[in-house]
């Protein structure tokens, strides 16, 4: 892959051509002709020119903690809502520091990275040589500008026996549906890490006031009227999201373990199949652009970096002998939705043996990893609801319900290894559910539990419940809790117990809502099944 860039700020001559005779213009014909310019270097040069405005408008982040390291992230953008963040085609050196203390007296690692124009001026630093299970602070510096300070934490040592892992489950942050107040509250929690389970950004139009935010001071440029499909538009959309101060606070507070769902590319896509009426090749290019922007904007390690249309996102993280997190990608490799997608009555296509939500490679990797983990708990951080969820006689074909073969394979392994916890996003509701090998046999023991976390903002203010949720609780005996508010799930995983607190905010279309614990559940590793705490 060779990125082509022109040098920045080529002087622009006057673009008015009033002297041109009209007849000559008409004679130009159907297509304008390209004039060749002097060849330029394929890689943007690193600039020593000063950066006048604060380039750290998009905050800082860390992610994917290991016992000896963590990924640090930032992206330079002095003017975040302009192409290339207002930096043009030059790359810039960025200093970074990791310290044991917030005042940076005891700096333990430091270096210089390059914010490359061809990567949207994103910076990924894979810091190693840190000590396990420790809190660290990090920051960046670029040309006299200091970034905000981020706080992160390494994973426990491989052979450690941690007493507890504290994490939050969050997903679905539509900017236009409301404010990210839930992130502000999450940043004040006491956590080791955050699992973000997808729909980090939404691809549709954002009007000048940010949709339901009705933020008249925002005055977004008209470019945000376009749905994202090219890399420049995805980059701008991430920049908009990352300017949100509440989201920045949540990134700066804890390391994140991110995965995506559909909206990072397009609503309800399946592998190479678009939801809407565009060609398969056009969609593959759109997906490549979306994946590239995702990589640029998340604290992910180099092996995750996409090459064209594919991006290997599924991965494993280990937290001593306490937990193994299997981070899944249920979008990139899935078979097209069965029965025509949507919420449909059962159909034979659902059971076709070659159908897969994970794809054969990832499914084998997951089942093998669950079998071999050897930790107290297997945590599946993933996107769509795994538990069977009947809407009367209908099922949602976009979820694991549309792929019963893969689900059965996972649940069969869970039945042999105690301690399976499935974490889920996507649906904009809070649910708590017991996982059974046969959901139609409510008397049989559960083989694991599923914590389905609501959205940060998607769906707007929400409410306590809906008639559809009440119906689901009645139709699905393994479903223990359903709630339609916004928020996140705060979890603590101990040696023998899992506790989940469903934290909710009563509204998101105005700023400043409070947070409360709507429900709490516990489950025992050796006797899975959620019960009120």
């Amino acid at each position, binding site marked *: 892959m060779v990125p082509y860039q022109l040098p920045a700020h080529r002087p622009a001559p006057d673009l008015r051509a009033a002297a041109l005779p009209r007849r000559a213009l008409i004679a130009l014909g159907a297509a304008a002709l390209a004039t060749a310019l002097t060849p330029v270097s394929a890689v943007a040069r690193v600039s020593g020119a000063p950066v006048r405005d604060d380039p750290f408008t998009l905050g800082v982040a860390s992610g994917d903690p290991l016992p000896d390291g963590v990924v640090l992230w930032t992206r330079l953008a002095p003017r975040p809502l302009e192409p290339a963040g207002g930096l043009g085609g030059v790359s810039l050196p960025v200093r970074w520091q990791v310290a044991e203390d917030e005042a940076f007296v005891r700096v333990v690692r430091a270096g210089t990275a390059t914010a490359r124009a061809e990567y949207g001026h994103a910076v990924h630093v894979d810091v190693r040589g840190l000590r396990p299970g420790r809190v660290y602070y990090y920051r960046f510096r670029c040309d006299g500008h200091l970034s905000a300070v981020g706080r992160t934490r390494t994973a426990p040592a491989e052979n450690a026996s941690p007493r507890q892992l504290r994490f939050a489950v969050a997903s679905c942050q539509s900017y236009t549906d409301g404010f990210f107040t839930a992130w502000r509250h999450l940043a004040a929690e006491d956590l080791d890490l955050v699992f973000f389970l997808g729909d980090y950004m939404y691809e549709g139009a954002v009007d000048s006031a940010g949709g339901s935010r009705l933020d008249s001071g925002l005055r977004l440029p008209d470019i945000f009227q376009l749905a994202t499909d090219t*890399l420049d538009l995805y980059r701008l959309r991430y920049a908009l999201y990352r300017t949100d101060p509440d989201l920045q606070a949540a990134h700066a507070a804890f390391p994140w373990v991110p995965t995506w769902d559909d909206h990072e590319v397009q609503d309800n896509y399946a592998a190479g199949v678009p939801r809407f009426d565009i060609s398969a090749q056009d969609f593959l290019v759109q997906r490549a652009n979306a994946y590239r922007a995702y990589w640029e904007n998340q604290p992910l390690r180099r092996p995750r970096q996409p090459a064209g249309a594919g991006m290997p996102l599924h991965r494993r993280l280990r937290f001593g002998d306490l937990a193994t997190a299997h981070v899944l990608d249920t979008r990139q490799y899935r078979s097209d939705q069965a029965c025509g997608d949507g919420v449909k009555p059962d159909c034979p296509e659902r059971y076709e043996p070659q159908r897969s939500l994970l794809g054969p490679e990832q499914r084998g990797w997951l089942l093998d990893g669950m079998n071999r983990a050897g930790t107290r708990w297997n945590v599946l951080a993933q996107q769509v609801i795994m538990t069977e969820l009947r809407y009367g006689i209908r099922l949602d074909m976009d979820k694991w319900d549309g792929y019963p073969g893969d689900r059965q394979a996972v649940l069969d392994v869970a039945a042999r290894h105690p301690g399976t916890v499935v974490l889920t996003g996507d649906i904009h509701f809070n649910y708590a559910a017991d996982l059974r090998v046969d959901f139609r046999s409510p008397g049989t023991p559960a083989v694991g539990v599923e914590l389905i976390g609501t959205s940060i903002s998607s769906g707007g203010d929400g409410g306590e419940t809906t008639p559809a949720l009440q119906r689901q609780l009645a139709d699905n005996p393994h479903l223990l809790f359903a709630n339609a508010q916004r928020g996140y799930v705060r979890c603590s995983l101990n040696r023998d117990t899992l506790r989940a607190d469903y934290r909710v905010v009563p509204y998101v279309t105005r700023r400043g809502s409070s947070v409360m614990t709507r429900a709490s559940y516990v489950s025992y590793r050796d006797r899975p099944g959620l019960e009120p705490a």
Partner: protein
Amino acid sequence: MWRAGAVALLLVPPGPVVRVSVEPGAVAITTGQCNGVELDVRLTNAGAEPVYADARLAAADVLHMPRRAISTWLPPGYTRTVPVAVSAPTGTAPGVYLVRVTGAGQRVEVPVTVSPPSPSPDLTRSVSRVNASSYRAGLLPCGALDGDADPARWWKGTGWADSTGKEWPDWLQLRWAAPQTVSRVTVTTVDSAEFPVAQFGLRDWDVQVAGPGGWQTVAAVRGNTAVTVTSDFAPRVTTEVRILTHAANGTNDWSRITEVAVS
């Protein structure tokens, strides 16, 4: 490549691997927010390897061209076509202005001839500004003023829809640079096999004109199931007309308007 100094030096291959072109090669538009054109900017990978390609877009200051960059992955042999909207605000001096696309070592210039709209009894042609309470990607306010009133084509970007399902009212607002005498407003909602009017059409709305004391309702439509409704009223002199929508015929509860005509 995350460490300082690790700058890869790649050789520039001979000749352009990525080709840049723009169609049409010259355009003429009239002034007004909704009277612009879309230029198709094409980036073609003529090489054998996939590339990430960039183009920069510039326009004379008087032109409104929100898009200033295109970056995309290009597999070998693939052409990405990106429609780029260009318009000239009401009041722009007549003349020929340039749009310039640069990328992959090439430069393409497209002359844009700008003139005021010809006087027409259809006042929508001379609207200087259109606004809406909200909108969706591909269903922008200008879609309702594009001269295409085919109710089956609404979904193809030729109409407007709000983005707040089940929340009412919504509005679509037209403004002129100078006062106009208006006495008729025609609203065309949707109708097609996919979006039949009885399920998806607009049901209740008010036609309003701006007066010294604020918005005045000059016509009200209730319980509508027709595709096109013309509201006649006593002539008013105003600079603004607004369609204030209150309800649709059910499904999703969006405001769907294919076209508005004012005379």
